């Protein structure tokens, strides 16, 4: 079969099981857009309003489904607009394949119209990238790109395709069989001595704790982690991206760790004599000051990326491998244990936290973000996929929307990308059409990518947008309050009327200013098969507690005062 490069791209996408791609056309990618028409019945193209949106949609699709998300853009400005999304996906190990048009090969290097060195620009923020220079290598490159994106530690891969390669005609040969890359061999299992060493540490520990990360879900090791925790009676603290790895109502789950984590989790980490870190990477937002981090604990660190082991925290037993495989090596030899005193101690800390919990305070006359999020949790039966933006509302989501199922909280953790939430929610809906999707976004971040309202309308995407409007870049304001004597430089915002805005896009909407209006508004949003927007006008100067100031010791938390203490 003789096909053009553009057609080959489509054929390859189909063979990877892709049925939706998010993109924006332009001169250098036009042949590929032209080829799309022929594949329209099997490959749906979603026209975004800004390429950043396409990259976040592909990312949201990938996070929700575990499959590779696809975005597509033209050369130059189209490709550079993808950069934020690629960096976001890179930091959170999200598998996406980005296809970009490039100027024709003879023009490369001549500063041609809309020429950018895209492989150069994206080199440090992709897992790998390609500039295709021979149409006969296109099919293999596409297959390799998907393989690299989804295998090992997943990540974004970019394929830059010059326009003349898209137009070139060749005999289409799809490479059958597995891709073998000599320089690419993600570790799989552990050595026996590593397993034995880990078992010895677990057996000796009196105050062990599991640090559950994103890798658990990417490896599909939820059941194995649960078995480990239950049989050895080990409490489980979650990273932000690890939420959902175990149901949050599980008695051994003690909550999120880190800068805005549960006090009990952070204290437990500092008091522990063994950390079992599973598919997490000891980010500074999780550890605080490394010098005082879990100083009395031995560490077992299991991660698929060998370079993560001993990067930030020295591991006594470091195992590079696929978590599910490694735990399945370990579990048959694991003995039952109990840690009554330790678990009891953590329960005491939890009780102190609940006394401080804002939901247990009287707050007449004000609407708080925590209340909004907790009510959304209650009204959705705790079963929605929530996609957050970045800021206070993000941390409050993590605190007040307990997740029961894996991959139901999608959030930009590593890069903290404002503008991620809304487009990622659209992508998630395309991947999970039967799930209820809520985009929980700040008034600041939403305005960074709100142009995708038009995309949501055009495609009639059933996402519910909850704007948490505090009229502030709230998280920055919080830092200004705590560390810059309340000098609110560049954080107050005069916002548009979000409801009128929604009207302009023909999107049904509501505004909520009182707690007793939440239920109705949420019911309204859930009743509509298409995009909806609810603006929650909340208290302007709310704080997120607990907080470990950047670089401080993990146990040195600013706590919410107990009632009567302030």
């Amino acid at each position, binding site marked *: 079969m003789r096909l053009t490069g553009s057609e080959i791209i489509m054929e390859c996408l189909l063979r990877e099981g892709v049925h939706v791609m998010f993109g924006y056309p332009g001169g250098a990618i036009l042949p590929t857009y032209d080829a799309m028409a022929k594949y329209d019945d099997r490959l749906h193209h979603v026209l975004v309003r800004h390429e950043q949106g396409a990259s976040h949609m592909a990312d949201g699709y990938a996070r929700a489904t575990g499959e590779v998300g696809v975005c597509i853009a033209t050369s130059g400005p189209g490709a550079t607009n993808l950069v934020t999304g690629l960096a976001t996906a890179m930091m959170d190990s999200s598998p996406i394949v980005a296809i970009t048009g490039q100027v024709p090969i003879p023009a490369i290097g001549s500063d041609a119209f809309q020429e950018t060195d895209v492989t150069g620009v994206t080199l440090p923020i992709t897992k790998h990238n390609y500039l295709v220079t021979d149409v006969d290598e296109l099919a293999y490159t596409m297959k390799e790109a998907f393989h690299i994106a989804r295998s090992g530690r997943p990540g974004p891969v970019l394929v830059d395709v010059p326009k003349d390669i898209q137009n070139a005609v060749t*005999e289409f*040969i799809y490479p059958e069989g597995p891709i073998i890359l000599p320089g690419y061999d993600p570790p799989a299992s552990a050595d026996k001595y590593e397993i034995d060493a880990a078992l010895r540490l677990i057996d000796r520990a009196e105050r062990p704790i599991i640090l559950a990360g994103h890798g658990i879900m990417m490896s599909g090791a939820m059941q194995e982690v649960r078995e480990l925790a239950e049989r050895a009676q080990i409490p489980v603290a979650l990273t932000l991206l690890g939420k959902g790895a175990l149901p949050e109502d599980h008695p051994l789950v003690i909550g999120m760790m880190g800068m805005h984590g549960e006090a009990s989790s952070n204290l437990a980490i500092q008091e522990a004599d063994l950390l079992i870190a599973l598919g997490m990477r000891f980010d500074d937002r999780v550890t605080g000051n490394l010098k005082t981090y879990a100083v009395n604990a031995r560490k077992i660190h299991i991660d698929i990326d*060998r*370079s993560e*082991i001993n990067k930030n925290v020295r591991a006594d037993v470091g195992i590079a491998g696929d978590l599910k495989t490694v735990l399945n090596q370990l579990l048959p030899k694991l003995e039952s244990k109990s840690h009554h005193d330790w678990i009891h101690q953590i329960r005491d800390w939890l009780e102190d936290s609940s006394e401080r919990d804002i939901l247990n305070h009287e707050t007449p006359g004000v609407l708080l973000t925590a209340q909004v999020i907790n009510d959304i949790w209650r009204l959705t039966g705790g079963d929605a996929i929530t996609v957050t933006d970045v800021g206070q509302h993000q941390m409050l989501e993590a605190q007040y929307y307990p997740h029961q199922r894996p991959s139901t909280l999608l959030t930009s953790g590593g890069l903290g990308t404002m503008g991620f939430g809304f487009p990622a929610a659209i992508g998630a809906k395309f991947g999970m059409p039967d799930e209820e999707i809520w985009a929980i976004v700040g008034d600041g971040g939403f305005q960074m990518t709100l142009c995708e309202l038009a995309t949501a309308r055009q495609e009639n995407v059933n996402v519910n947008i909850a704007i948490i409007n505090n009229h502030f870049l709230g998280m920055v304001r919080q830092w200004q309050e705590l560390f810059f004597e309340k000098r609110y430089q560049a954080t107050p915002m005069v916002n548009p009327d979000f409801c009128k805005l929604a009207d302009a896009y023909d999107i049904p909407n509501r505004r909520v200013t009182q707690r007793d209006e939440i239920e109705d508004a949420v019911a309204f949003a859930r009743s509509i098969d298409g995009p909806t927007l609810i603006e929650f006008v909340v208290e302007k100067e709310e704080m997120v507690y607990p907080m470990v100031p950047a670089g401080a010791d993990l146990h040195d938390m600013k706590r919410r005062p107990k009632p009567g203490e302030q």
Partner: protein
Amino acid sequence: MAQQATANKVTVVALVENEPGVLNRIASLFRRRAFNIDSLTVGRTHKPDISRMTIRVDAGPEYARKIANNLQKLVNVIDVRVIDNEPHIERDLALIKVRNDDAHSRNTLTEICDRYPARIVDVGPHVAIIEMVGTETFVEKFIDEVRPIGIVEMIRTGVVSMGRGTRIHDTSVTRRGLARATLQASAARNGRIV
């Protein structure tokens, strides 16, 4: 000859695909991770599509392993090895242009070169070029001796290393090679010849 390895320095040897942009990827990695590199050399091997890099690090073996683990993540890096304690041969080459305009310097230069594996490869009325090959420390010792004569220009290649004995560090598999084979097999299965 007193040629022992420099203390505290560790060598990382990597086999990489000889493709455009590979060196850029490696340089970008070092910059991004703020790895401190002493020297880096790249050269061809006896296989046309494989290059070999020697990276010298002025740090402990743990740091070298960190670099190796990150290098290994690059798709175009085929194999990485940290040469720490194992016996190996290492060579650095220096071209040194020195002043040569009086009898005294000429004599001193010849005298020094006699005691080292160094050759005078170019002589003129004012300057001479010397080529010195040896371990890094040995080359440095030589440079120290020559320095008083007056060095006007110098270039060093950086260290290249090879482990001793029969532990062979080599490969003949490359991505392109495998891709070609897979495509040919796929085409043959479909009754086509390419």
